[in-house]
Protein backbone atom coordinates (compact mmCIF):
# COMPACT_ATOMS: atom_id res chain seq x y z
CA UNK A 1 0.00 0.00 0.00
CA UNK A 2 2.03 2.93 -1.21
CA UNK A 3 -0.41 4.73 -3.42
CA UNK A 4 -1.49 8.24 -2.58
CA UNK A 5 -5.10 7.43 -3.40
CA UNK A 6 -5.19 4.65 -0.82
CA UNK A 7 -3.21 6.69 1.69
CA UNK A 8 -5.76 9.52 1.63
CA UNK A 9 -8.44 6.96 2.48
CA UNK A 10 -6.58 6.08 5.66
CA UNK A 11 -5.93 9.76 6.47
CA UNK A 12 -9.63 10.39 6.24
CA UNK A 13 -10.56 7.25 8.15
CA UNK A 14 -8.28 8.10 11.06
CA UNK A 15 -10.36 11.23 11.70
CA UNK A 16 -13.40 8.99 12.23
CA UNK A 17 -12.16 5.82 13.90
CA UNK A 18 -8.88 4.50 15.21
CA UNK A 19 -6.81 2.72 12.60
CA UNK A 20 -5.75 -0.90 12.96
CA UNK A 21 -2.07 -1.57 13.58
CA UNK A 22 -1.56 -2.56 9.97
CA UNK A 23 -3.34 0.54 8.67
CA UNK A 24 -1.28 2.78 10.92
CA UNK A 25 2.00 1.27 9.78
CA UNK A 26 1.19 1.46 6.10
CA UNK A 27 0.04 5.07 6.41
CA UNK A 28 3.14 6.02 8.36
CA UNK A 29 5.40 4.44 5.77
CA UNK A 30 3.68 6.28 2.97
CA UNK A 31 3.77 9.62 4.76
CA UNK A 32 7.51 9.21 5.33
CA UNK A 33 8.05 9.01 1.61
CA UNK A 34 5.42 11.37 0.25
CA UNK A 35 5.50 15.13 0.76
CA UNK A 36 2.15 15.79 -0.95
CA UNK A 37 0.33 13.30 1.29
CA UNK A 38 1.94 14.79 4.40
CA UNK A 39 0.33 18.10 3.43
CA UNK A 40 -2.99 16.40 2.78
CA UNK A 41 -2.80 14.70 6.17
CA UNK A 42 -2.29 18.06 7.90
CA UNK A 43 -5.18 19.56 5.97
CA UNK A 44 -7.58 16.76 6.92
CA UNK A 45 -6.58 17.32 10.53
CA UNK A 46 -7.23 21.03 10.14
CA UNK A 47 -10.67 20.30 8.68
CA UNK A 48 -11.32 18.12 11.70
CA UNK A 49 -10.60 21.09 13.98
CA UNK A 50 -12.90 23.46 12.15
CA UNK A 51 -15.94 22.59 14.26
CA UNK A 52 -14.35 23.13 17.65
CA UNK A 53 -12.71 26.28 16.33
CA UNK A 54 -16.05 27.59 15.20
CA UNK A 55 -17.44 26.93 18.65
CA UNK A 56 -14.52 28.65 20.37
CA UNK A 57 -14.91 31.65 18.08
CA UNK A 58 -18.57 31.93 18.97
CA UNK A 59 -17.61 32.57 22.55
CA UNK A 60 -15.03 35.11 21.43
CA UNK A 61 -17.33 36.88 18.97
CA UNK A 62 -19.05 38.78 21.75
CA UNK A 63 -15.83 39.54 23.62
CA UNK A 64 -14.46 41.38 20.65
CA UNK A 65 -17.81 43.07 20.38
CA UNK A 66 -17.43 44.52 23.87
CA UNK A 67 -14.00 45.95 23.26
CA UNK A 68 -15.15 47.64 20.11
Amino acid at each position, binding site marked *: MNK*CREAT*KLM*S*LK*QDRSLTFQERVSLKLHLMMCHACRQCDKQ*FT*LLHEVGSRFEA*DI*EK*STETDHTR
Partner: protein
Amino acid sequence: MTDTPPPGHGDGKPDASHRMERLAAVRPRLLSFARMQLRDNAMAEDAVQEALMAAIEKDDSFAGRSGYETWVFGILKYKILDGLRAQKRQGRWQPLEAEPDDDTLDRLFQQSGHWHRHERPVSWGQPDAILESDHFWQVFDACMIALPDNVARVFSLRELMGLSTEDICREVGIKENNCWVILHRARLRLRTCLEKGWLKEE
Protein backbone atom coordinates in the same frame (compact mmCIF):
# COMPACT_ATOMS: atom_id res chain seq x y z
CA MET B 1 -32.34 51.44 51.56
CA THR B 2 -30.55 48.34 50.43
CA ASP B 3 -30.54 46.97 46.92
CA THR B 4 -30.93 43.23 46.77
CA PRO B 5 -28.39 41.85 44.32
CA PRO B 6 -30.02 40.53 41.15
CA PRO B 7 -30.50 36.75 41.16
CA GLY B 8 -27.69 34.89 39.52
CA HIS B 9 -25.40 37.84 39.99
CA GLY B 10 -21.74 37.01 40.09
CA ASP B 11 -21.96 33.50 38.64
CA GLY B 12 -21.05 34.56 35.14
CA LYS B 13 -24.63 34.79 34.01
CA PRO B 14 -25.25 37.93 32.02
CA ASP B 15 -28.20 40.06 33.17
CA ALA B 16 -31.26 40.49 30.99
CA SER B 17 -30.35 43.52 28.90
CA HIS B 18 -26.77 42.39 28.50
CA ARG B 19 -28.02 38.99 27.45
CA MET B 20 -30.05 40.36 24.55
CA GLU B 21 -27.01 42.28 23.39
CA ARG B 22 -24.91 39.16 23.45
CA LEU B 23 -27.54 37.15 21.60
CA ALA B 24 -27.70 39.84 18.95
CA ALA B 25 -23.92 39.85 18.66
CA VAL B 26 -23.64 36.09 18.22
CA ARG B 27 -26.60 35.77 15.83
CA PRO B 28 -24.67 36.23 12.55
CA ARG B 29 -22.27 33.41 13.41
CA LEU B 30 -25.09 31.13 14.46
CA LEU B 31 -26.81 31.88 11.19
CA SER B 32 -23.79 31.09 9.07
CA PHE B 33 -23.39 27.81 10.97
CA ALA B 34 -27.06 26.90 10.47
CA ARG B 35 -26.83 27.75 6.77
CA MET B 36 -23.91 25.43 6.24
CA GLN B 37 -25.89 22.64 7.85
CA LEU B 38 -29.38 23.14 6.54
CA ARG B 39 -28.47 24.70 3.19
CA ASP B 40 -31.72 26.59 3.14
CA ASN B 41 -31.79 30.23 4.20
CA ALA B 42 -35.34 30.27 5.48
CA MET B 43 -34.86 27.11 7.52
CA ALA B 44 -31.59 28.42 8.89
CA GLU B 45 -33.24 31.66 9.97
CA ASP B 46 -36.00 29.67 11.66
CA ALA B 47 -33.59 27.38 13.48
CA VAL B 48 -31.60 30.34 14.82
CA GLN B 49 -34.75 32.17 15.79
CA GLU B 50 -36.04 29.12 17.67
CA ALA B 51 -32.69 28.66 19.40
CA LEU B 52 -32.61 32.29 20.53
CA MET B 53 -36.21 32.09 21.78
CA ALA B 54 -35.44 28.87 23.63
CA ALA B 55 -32.37 30.47 25.17
CA ILE B 56 -34.45 33.36 26.46
CA GLU B 57 -37.22 31.08 27.73
CA LYS B 58 -34.99 28.47 29.32
CA ASP B 59 -32.71 31.08 30.76
CA ASP B 60 -32.94 29.50 34.22
CA SER B 61 -31.40 26.28 33.00
CA PHE B 62 -28.18 28.02 31.99
CA ALA B 63 -25.86 26.77 34.71
CA GLY B 64 -22.87 28.91 33.89
CA ARG B 65 -20.67 25.85 33.49
CA SER B 66 -19.95 26.75 29.90
CA GLY B 67 -19.91 30.19 28.36
CA TYR B 68 -23.27 31.70 27.60
CA GLU B 69 -22.74 31.69 23.82
CA THR B 70 -21.55 28.09 23.89
CA TRP B 71 -24.72 27.16 25.69
CA VAL B 72 -26.85 28.90 23.06
CA PHE B 73 -24.80 27.19 20.35
CA GLY B 74 -25.63 23.84 21.95
CA ILE B 75 -29.33 24.66 21.74
CA LEU B 76 -28.91 25.60 18.09
CA LYS B 77 -27.34 22.22 17.34
CA TYR B 78 -30.51 20.49 18.54
CA LYS B 79 -32.64 22.82 16.44
CA ILE B 80 -30.50 22.05 13.41
CA LEU B 81 -30.90 18.31 13.96
CA ASP B 82 -34.68 18.86 14.17
CA GLY B 83 -34.50 20.81 10.92
CA LEU B 84 -32.49 18.08 9.19
CA ARG B 85 -34.96 15.44 10.33
CA ALA B 86 -37.81 17.55 8.99
CA GLN B 87 -36.03 17.84 5.63
CA LYS B 88 -35.60 14.09 5.57
CA ARG B 89 -39.28 13.49 6.36
CA GLN B 90 -40.29 15.91 3.64
CA GLY B 91 -38.29 13.84 1.18
CA ARG B 92 -35.93 16.70 0.45
CA TRP B 93 -32.82 14.56 0.66
CA GLN B 94 -31.36 12.96 -2.40
CA PRO B 95 -30.44 9.30 -1.90
CA LEU B 96 -27.19 9.08 -0.01
CA GLU B 97 -25.73 6.00 -1.58
CA ALA B 98 -22.37 7.06 -2.92
CA GLU B 99 -22.94 7.82 -6.57
CA PRO B 100 -21.09 5.26 -8.68
CA ASP B 101 -20.27 7.91 -11.26
CA ASP B 102 -18.62 10.20 -8.72
CA ASP B 103 -15.31 11.08 -10.33
CA THR B 104 -13.77 13.00 -7.41
CA LEU B 105 -10.99 10.48 -7.02
CA ASP B 106 -10.31 10.06 -10.72
CA ARG B 107 -9.90 13.79 -11.12
CA LEU B 108 -7.31 13.94 -8.36
CA PHE B 109 -5.33 10.76 -8.89
CA GLN B 110 -3.60 9.16 -11.83
CA GLN B 111 -4.29 5.56 -12.82
CA SER B 112 -1.17 4.63 -10.91
CA GLY B 113 -2.75 5.95 -7.69
CA HIS B 114 -0.42 8.94 -7.39
CA TRP B 115 -1.60 12.55 -7.34
CA HIS B 116 -2.01 14.28 -10.66
CA ARG B 117 0.82 16.75 -10.80
CA HIS B 118 -1.39 19.85 -10.67
CA GLU B 119 -3.50 18.39 -7.84
CA ARG B 120 -0.64 17.65 -5.47
CA PRO B 121 -1.37 19.26 -2.08
CA VAL B 122 0.96 22.06 -1.04
CA SER B 123 1.61 23.52 2.40
CA TRP B 124 -0.99 25.88 3.84
CA GLY B 125 1.27 27.22 6.57
CA GLN B 126 0.56 27.19 10.30
CA PRO B 127 -2.89 25.79 11.25
CA ASP B 128 -3.35 28.44 13.95
CA ALA B 129 -2.70 31.29 11.55
CA ILE B 130 -5.06 29.74 9.01
CA LEU B 131 -7.92 29.44 11.47
CA GLU B 132 -7.37 33.03 12.63
CA SER B 133 -7.89 34.31 9.13
CA ASP B 134 -11.35 35.68 8.25
CA HIS B 135 -10.57 35.01 4.63
CA PHE B 136 -10.16 31.30 5.36
CA TRP B 137 -13.65 31.20 6.84
CA GLN B 138 -15.14 32.99 3.85
CA VAL B 139 -13.57 30.49 1.49
CA PHE B 140 -14.57 27.61 3.76
CA ASP B 141 -18.15 28.83 3.64
CA ALA B 142 -18.07 29.08 -0.15
CA CYS B 143 -16.48 25.64 -0.48
CA MET B 144 -19.14 24.10 1.77
CA ILE B 145 -21.85 25.64 -0.39
CA ALA B 146 -20.15 24.24 -3.50
CA LEU B 147 -20.34 20.66 -2.18
CA PRO B 148 -23.32 18.56 -3.23
CA ASP B 149 -26.03 18.70 -0.53
CA ASN B 150 -25.78 15.11 0.58
CA VAL B 151 -21.98 15.16 0.81
CA ALA B 152 -21.99 18.45 2.71
CA ARG B 153 -24.61 17.12 5.10
CA VAL B 154 -22.54 14.10 6.12
CA PHE B 155 -19.38 16.20 6.39
CA SER B 156 -20.97 18.84 8.55
CA LEU B 157 -22.71 16.33 10.81
CA ARG B 158 -19.29 14.81 11.39
CA GLU B 159 -16.97 17.82 11.52
CA LEU B 160 -19.20 20.72 12.52
CA MET B 161 -21.73 18.98 14.74
CA GLY B 162 -19.23 16.43 16.01
CA LEU B 163 -21.47 13.36 15.61
CA SER B 164 -19.77 9.96 15.39
CA THR B 165 -20.03 8.13 12.07
CA GLU B 166 -22.18 5.58 13.88
CA ASP B 167 -24.67 8.30 14.87
CA ILE B 168 -24.59 9.78 11.39
CA CYS B 169 -25.52 6.42 9.89
CA ARG B 170 -28.51 6.21 12.17
CA GLU B 171 -29.52 9.81 11.45
CA VAL B 172 -29.08 9.60 7.70
CA GLY B 173 -29.86 5.93 7.13
CA ILE B 174 -26.65 4.71 5.48
CA LYS B 175 -24.08 2.05 6.30
CA GLU B 176 -20.97 3.14 8.17
CA ASN B 177 -18.75 2.00 5.33
CA ASN B 178 -20.63 4.28 3.00
CA CYS B 179 -20.26 7.10 5.46
CA TRP B 180 -16.47 6.75 5.38
CA VAL B 181 -16.46 6.75 1.61
CA ILE B 182 -18.52 9.94 1.54
CA LEU B 183 -16.32 11.62 4.15
CA HIS B 184 -13.17 10.69 2.25
CA ARG B 185 -14.52 12.36 -0.88
CA ALA B 186 -15.89 15.34 1.01
CA ARG B 187 -12.51 16.01 2.62
CA LEU B 188 -10.66 15.69 -0.67
CA ARG B 189 -13.09 18.02 -2.41
CA LEU B 190 -12.98 20.55 0.38
CA ARG B 191 -9.22 20.59 0.62
CA THR B 192 -8.95 21.03 -3.14
CA CYS B 193 -11.49 23.85 -3.11
CA LEU B 194 -9.83 25.55 -0.15
CA GLU B 195 -6.40 25.37 -1.69
CA LYS B 196 -7.63 26.78 -5.00
CA GLY B 197 -9.84 29.49 -3.58
CA TRP B 198 -7.74 30.63 -0.74
CA LEU B 199 -4.01 30.13 -1.18
CA LYS B 200 -4.06 31.70 -4.61
CA GLU B 201 -5.48 34.96 -3.25
CA GLU B 202 -3.73 35.15 0.09
